[in-house]
């Protein structure tokens, strides 16, 4: 328990990290470091995208599965770690 907390804190203090969101399988944010509106927005968008990506990967080969999803944009990079019972989203600012 303490390790998870510790790791979460370290991630937040990493260089360029804008926010960390953990959402459960129903899409409810469990843990977030950002304001409500942004959290909810990211949660719903990323959940849909991760589901679509996973579906795409598995359609090609059903024995394959999605392990990680990274979306790189001009201003940010969004890292999405999909798991069975939760979704971890980290947003990092790539420019100094």
């Amino acid at each position, binding site marked *: *328990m303490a*390790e*998870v907390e510790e*790791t*979460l804190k*370290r*991630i937040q203090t*990493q*260089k*360029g*990290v804008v926010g960390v969101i*953990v959402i*459960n399988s129903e899409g*409810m*944010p*469990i*843990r*977030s*470091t*950002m*304001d*409500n509106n942004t*959290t909810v927005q990211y949660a719903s968008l990323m959940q849909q995208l991760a589901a679509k990506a996973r*579906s795409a990967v*598995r*359609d090609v080969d*059903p*024995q394959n599965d999605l392990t*990680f999803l*990274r979306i790189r944009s*001009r*201003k940010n*990079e969004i*890292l999405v*770690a999909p*798991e*069975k*019972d*939760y979704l*971890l989203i*980290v947003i*990092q600012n*790539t*420019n*100094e």
Partner: protein
Amino acid sequence: MLQGPVDRMTGSQFHGLEQAPGSNCNRPAIVVYDDKKRDVTPRPLYIQNPGDMSRCAGHHFDSTGTTPIDLCTLGSAQHTTDSFSSSILFSRSFRRSSSSSSHHSITSMITEAADAEILQGIEHEKQVQEHPFLPDPEKLVSVVLCESETFTLIDIPAVSVSEQAPEASAVCEQNQQYIDLCQKREGCNCYDDGTAQTFCHAQKNKDVQSEHVTTTEKGVECTAWDLHDSFQSSIEKEPKHVASHTALTSFVLPCYSTPGQDSRSGIMEEFSLENLWSSLRMVERMLATNELQLRLAIYRQLTYQPDDDSEVKQYGGYEVTPKDSRSSTQNTTNTSPALDQLWVYGCALTKGRNVSCLAVNQANKDILAVGYGQFDFQHKKNGLVCCWTVKNPTWPERVYRCEAGVTAIAFSITDPNLLAVGSHDGVISIYNVRNVADIPLLSTRELPGRHMSTIWDLCWVDTERGADLDRVDLNEDLVSVSGDGRVTKWMILKNLGFNGEFLMCFSTII
């Protein structure tokens, strides 16, 4: 036989009949009269001609061949005298019944004649037997199968006239007259509207109540992998041990804490830790590598292509241009040989500690094991072993705390997950770096033959191919040099024990 007017359609007679002739003698003579004293006794569908009764009695469906077919043919022969359509309500084409009516339809006559011929043709192999009830077993038996008679219930032939026929014009005129009549009917005075009242019986309302039918809708999106998953689960059919797993490793996180506010109110969620922690560590590495991208590229000697939007253009003496980044010789700022620092492995844990030894993992060159321990023996401080990775210089992947300062460290070559650690108090521990826990796999702490003084160096050496069956199938032994002047070779046994073998001794203690 009674004769009387025959209704063309129904073939029934409306005169009272006391006993329907041809009816079975066994049957009681039930006669039914309607209101007007008319006999409306239901008649059997098939009535035998009384003239045939004597023959019929002996006829059975057996070998003799005097089958019911005979009956029919006889009947047809006698048709002229028969006026018996009354017995059958609807059938006219039945051979006997249609005979008397004066209005034979052409088709029914033809059918009759044809049938009669066919039947006669079949009849040619017959033998009349006196006693049909006792068949002679030696005689040949021929059985003739035929189909039963066809009952035609209604026969209204279509009447159509060819245009070239002589009566064509007459028929056309008739048709036209009819059409005109229909059209004129609307406003014509020849027709009077008449009303008829039907009985409107008293109505009775009846209510029925039923249970509310609950309906549910269910939609499923079917994809290829969905089918694959269901197939796999049906094959395996293993019970899921989800509950027990989560009970051990679950914990409660506060729901959605805003920055600067650690609110523990709200919905508490429990979920498994293991996956979350590994995901978090992976994410941490990714974040660090994002930062380190240029330096990592230099370390790995890869060409670095920065994004158009990234602002990292220069690192130390290296000028990063979009086309060429490997510019180690194009040192623009400095002409004398110098080293540019790429990154520093350090964190809060290791701050102020003295690095005493290093080891690089042979299997995965990214992993560096660092032992922290004091060479200064006045200060007794806990030792620390950290496994750092190139991908994350901000925090070590593994942290193992030791009781005494670490003085020697070595990775096994054949078994790259084994890390041997020698400490200041002479204890050698072997850690399995796959485990995160602080507990060493093996330790010489309790062993009688352990070293008494600081371990100065550790080395994994290849074993000689001995036939010792107690040994674990490990190709390496650990050799340690200690401050008590002994060089010892350690072997790992099958029951995870350690066995020390004394190798040599030094005369002077260093």
